[in-house]
């Protein structure tokens, strides 16, 4: 059952792709945090939170997120279909399944 050991380092392109996925997963979290920032404004000493400023802030963040999402979506679509997601799990399962047989045999003897 000699399976060639997985390389320690990924090829540059798949590495880039993994990081793209990470970025795609990270983006909504960043967005949520930024959208929650107005909660921290509160009425400061001597001034109250301004709706106009809040509106400009929210819409600016929103626009930024949309641009980033568009860039990521384009990049992810370019690098091809989903691959690699199941590799790790598959290898692990294969090893496990292959291991059981000799063990059984040993016990039987």
């Amino acid at each position: 059952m000699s399976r060639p050991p997985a390389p320690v380092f990924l090829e540059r392109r798949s590495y880039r792709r993994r990081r793209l996925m990470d970025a795609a997963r990270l983006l909504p979290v960043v967005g949520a945090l930024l959208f929650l920032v107005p909660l921290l404004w509160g009425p400061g000493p001597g001034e109250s939170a301004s709706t106009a400023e809040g509106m400009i802030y929210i819409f600016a963040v929103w626009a930024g997120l949309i641009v980033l999402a568009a860039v990521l979506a384009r990049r992810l679509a370019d690098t091809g279909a989903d691959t690699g997601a199941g590799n790790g799990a598959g290898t692990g399962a294969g090893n496990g399944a292959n291991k059981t047989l000799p063990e059984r045999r040993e016990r039987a003897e």
Partner: protein
Amino acid sequence: MIGFNILVLVCLSYVALLFVVAFAAEKRAERGEVGWLRSPVVYTLSLSIYATAWTFYGAVGYAVRSGLEFVTIYLGPSLVMIGWWWLVRKLVRIGRSQRITSIADLISSRYGKSNLLGVIVTVLAVIGTTPYIALQLQSVTLSFSVFPSDASAVWNVQDLDDTALYVAIGLAFFTILFGTRNLDANERHHGVVTAIALEAVVKLVALLAVGVFVVWGVASGPADIVARIEASPISDLTFAGGRWATLIFLSAAAFLCLPRMFQVMVVENADERHVAVASWAFPLYLFLISLFVIPIAVVGLKVLPGANPDLYVLTVPLALGQNGLAMLSFLGGFSSATSMVIVAAIALSTMVSNHIVMPIWLSTRSGGATVSGDVRKVVLLSRRLSIAAVLALGYLYFYFSGGGEALAAIGLISFTGVAQVLPAMLGGLFWRGATRNGAAFGLVLGFAVWAYTLFLPSFGDSFILPASVLAEGPWGISWLRPQALFGVASLDPVVHAVFWSMLINTGAFFAVSLLSFPQPLERLQGAQFVNVLEHSRNAPGWAQGAAEAEDLLIMSQRILGAGEAQALFQGQARAQGKAGYLPDTTPEFVETLERELAGSVGAATAHAMVGQITGGAAVSVEDLMAVADETAQMMEYSSQLEAKSAELGRTARQLRDANDKLTALSIQKDAFLSQISHELRTPMTSIRAFSEILMADGPMSEADQARFSTIIHDEAIRLTRLLDDLLDLSVLENGQVSLNWQDANLADVLERAMAATTSMQGKTPLKIRREVARERLDLVTDPDRLAQVFINLIANAGKYCDAEKPELRIAVARRGNTVVIDFIDNGAGIPKASQSVIFEKFSRLTDQSRAGGAGLGLAISREIMAKLGGSVSYLPGQGGAAFRVSLPRGQARAAE
């Protein structure tokens, strides 16, 4: 001013346009020219049914009442779409691979095709969506009422109700016409989706137009608007922290759980890649929709203070004399309302028909789907009736609630209700341990809490929940006050309801999931859902059963339609390498068929229908498990066999060894016998020959007589000695010998042996060299037997030493408790090849000086030494023949 007739005319023309577009799209799709009908743009636009009349009209009103907070309703969905890689991608993949028809189907399918869960989610969705449909009807009628009619300046309530009724009927008609045109295997509605996409464009353009008019027409640009915002009452409103975060979460949850959103996002999705585009395009759409809300609100407050802020989008242009713009705005609102109602009605009717009507209908037909009438017609009819019922419910809600409430309130109540599906959905997608019971408990409890804390109180003082209960709690228990459960009174009602319902829902879901044990099918589906991105295969559900392909074809024709079913069967048969329409009912085929049917009637119903024909609705997962068990047993058995055969092999080897030994022994015995007879025969021959000479008549000298009788005597002695030796050896080998143990001195024993051997010296006397001083050793042994061994060794040296001056050296040494006596002569020694055989019986290396002896001496010596607890062996490398006798000094006696 726009007259009522013109309004109706425009409205009808718009509806007619929608009909034409939908019809054209259907025609195009039928011809197979899907093309742009299924582009990412259309997908994104169809998602925009999220923005209903609640958005179109309500957002401005919301902004007037709560400032910037309105935007939370759009931030949640934006985040969900931006985070598509987490969730929406998986949802769409599951929806496609499992042929999911609705959110109820998703939940039912995930938890082992449980119809119970399907029913729960369906009921929840109907209850949660009905007020929302009422809301749409209300907004359309309100927008009608804004335009003064020709007859009277003000509409009365009766007119409003009539308008709502007409709108409801018109929508039902449209929905039935395009939503249930065909029972498509993919549950996709090209006409409806295209019409919705058009409506999405209309409402966006309308809202943007009003916004642009407000910013650049009324105000003098963005800077002026900012200044106006600062000056308006909206600016004074502060952020309510709890509501801000809760509403972002709630809108995100509702976006995923709303039946209509699920319909367009998952069910109508044609290509997974469209999701990638929608991930930024849909947030952009919401961004544009929200962009001008606050400017419109600010200008509205200025222009029409005191008017209903929910209708500013319409009334502001009207008040400023922009009739064309007002008309566009009216169409935008109309589009928002109708598109939402159409999709919601389709989604709900699918759920009602698949999870409530069809199971009931199937259970009343005990004979099964094959015997009964046309299933296809039944499904379509139940869909149509469901659509009509859903719209009727919405109208009734509108009629009885009086339509007076602020639009936004109903929206949030509805959102909170449908969001109860979220824990079961996310849990089912990411956690394999989620079980059907957990999902059911979570849903029911969350739903109950929602109804108690938010839905029922929304009716105000009613007979279900009187004002006293609201204020003091049931039976005066203040901890159970609907809007202050467990004493939590400081929260906003919506936040309060979301907090408690989600907490109890999620808690029950996890707790019961952890405690309960899932059915095999649940576990299988769970693995399929959670790992859908790793391997998009479908659940093996059917072992080869008694299903008749013909019965299945008859049933499928009734659901899918004759042409499609035949094409499917033919394709499958061809894939199996068969001609004709009837493929073998392999598990793969039945599975494929079930999936196709699931696209029309839902997974649970399809499973049940195929189950009726394939004989036994009991899913063969159990069979699979049994098969797996059997396999395990067989493996066990074969490993046992293997062990046994190894044992047999060992036994056979042992038998073979024993056989070899026996054969060798038999050969030895034969050799021994032939040796014996030879040894006995030689002296007998000479005795007989000489006695015959003596008996012969004739003269014979005295000397001759004496010589002959001496020979006979010698031979007789030799014969006796041979027999004695044989007897001796036999006694020794059988262990019957009795040893005479006593104290002895080695020197004495050697002395005796030498004395005995001097008498049988040959022609050349053997010179013996001894070290007498070393020989003074006390032993416990049998001196006679030991002397016998020594005599034999010394005699051998005398007989066989071929040196000119034969010489024997007897060396004695002590090795610990062992005495070693070496007998070394100066002859040629014994060749290496012969060294191993000299101790065998009758082994004589040479026959040269036949001084008697049958070659038994060394064999006897070896036996004696073994009996005495020592040994005699040949010692190579000493310059001549050398024998070493080793024997223990004293303990041999104790060991006896």
